[in-house]
């Protein structure tokens, strides 16, 4: 039992030591998060425009995007500096315009603002059939 406990503690310590993030990794993750939320806003706005998703639902996507981007920006800035937070900030700068368009019921303006957000950070698309290593 003692050997098992000791092994578990050693494994946990080794894993913890290995998992401190490099600034490059933080930058890459911030970019991925920004791209994913920009793609979500873009697809969501298109579907809201065509009536495939309801207004309350699209409103909650926008609210969630705002919260997540704010958190991501804060983390990226504190761990890797202003440059890492830049793509997140760029996408977040369009959220107010999208939210405003939703409140006015202006679907065309929402689509336009969401596309502008998506153009800031190109999405990293995962094909359905990803190539394994």
């Amino acid at each position, binding site marked *: 039992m003692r050997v098992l406990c000791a092994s578990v503690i050693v494994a946990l310590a080794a894993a913890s030591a290995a998992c401190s993030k490099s600034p490059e990794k933080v930058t890459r993750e911030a970019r991925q998060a920004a791209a994913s939320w920009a*793609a979500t806003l873009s697809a969501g706005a298109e*579907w809201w425009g065509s009536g495939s998703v309801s207004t309350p639902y699209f409103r909650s996507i926008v609210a969630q995007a705002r919260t997540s981007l704010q958190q991501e920006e804060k983390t990226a800035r504190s761990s890797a500096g202003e440059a890492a937070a830049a793509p997140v900030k760029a996408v977040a700068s369009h959220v107010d315009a999208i939210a405003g368009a939703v409140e006015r019921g202006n679907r065309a303006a929402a689509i336009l603002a969401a596309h502008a957000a998506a153009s800031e950070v190109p999405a990293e698309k995962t094909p359905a059939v990803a190539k394994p290593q």
Partner: protein
Amino acid sequence: MKNMMNLALGIVTSIGGFLDVGAIATAALAGAAFGVQMLWVLAVGTLCVMFLTEMAGRLACVSHHSLVDAVRERCGFRYFSFLLIGELLVDLLVLAAEIGGVAVALHLVTGVDYRWFVPIVAFALWVLIWLGTFSIVQNGASLLGLITLSFVVGMWWMGPPWHEAMKALVPSAPSHDTAKYWFTAVGIIGALFEPFMLNFYASGAIEEKWSLKDITMNRVTAVLGMGFGAVIAISIVMLSALTLGPHGIQVDSYEQAALMMVQPFGSWGIPLFAASLGIACFGASLQVALNLSYLFSQGFGWNWSENLKPHDDARFAMVYTLAIPVGALLVVVLGDPLKITTFSMALNALLAPVIVFPLLILMNDRYYVREYRNHAIGNVFVSAIVVLAFLIAIVAIPLEVLGG
């Protein structure tokens, strides 16, 4: 005819019981991030859970012991205390994730903050368990859970890449995001192995008075029910891979996951996703809350049955009455139901050996299962997968959690 009806009902309840917040969240996450590449994890995990469910049911049929009851008797009180604490902590977290799943489903269709729905969901849960019988709780939720078949229809609609999906059944390493890949793999295994499910299944067999004549039905129910359930989980992976990944959408919230249903179903997509998530999570939260009552009552030798009136098994009723508000409170305090879900599913994988190895001991003990003991294949396969999942969990959980 009656046997056929029972069998069909058993399979339907297994399908309904298979899917819960963990299965939906981890499958959606895997599909969006890695395409169909992680299907092999689902296939291996499902095979393993088929073995385990069949064993838990066989134990109940032959020995008329539930899993917890038998572990307490065979391994002693010290081991049982260890199991009790571990399962209490993990089950409370899973209960929080399931309640959160129902609340998020209501949020998706109304736009109202999910936290407002948490107390309403918790109260509805408690009322149903307090007033209902085992068959109402189990069969009602599971029959409604068949709405999750909409994931299969959606996948079919999108034209899945069958050939590539078959290739993905062979294990492969990731080409990117290694830590996320293995954390997701552990989450998928954890969502399949949920320890509460094994004891709930065995307790249900005792509630429904299964005996030796039900051994074949138990086997067919475990294999077909879990098999069909896995088909739904595979459909979620494929649907997510076909609709979210190609747009560059990753699943960081349920709002994003729900978008997978818009392409195949149009304006019905979000309501269908919300109904599937809500009903599957509500059914699972009934099972987790009841399992906590089973856990304490069977372990301490109290009166227990969902078919008794609460005043006939007061301590059994007290456990779920306390557990439900604690689970609800955890959702509100911890926030982000998706994060609670993925973390609790990974913890399931950590806890699995604590409950699986005593089960294997019991299933090889002539005193409990007489001539219905395990074959070597079942012992070796289940042990290997559980140990592997445990080891990956030990490495992947700190990597993912401390690494953010």
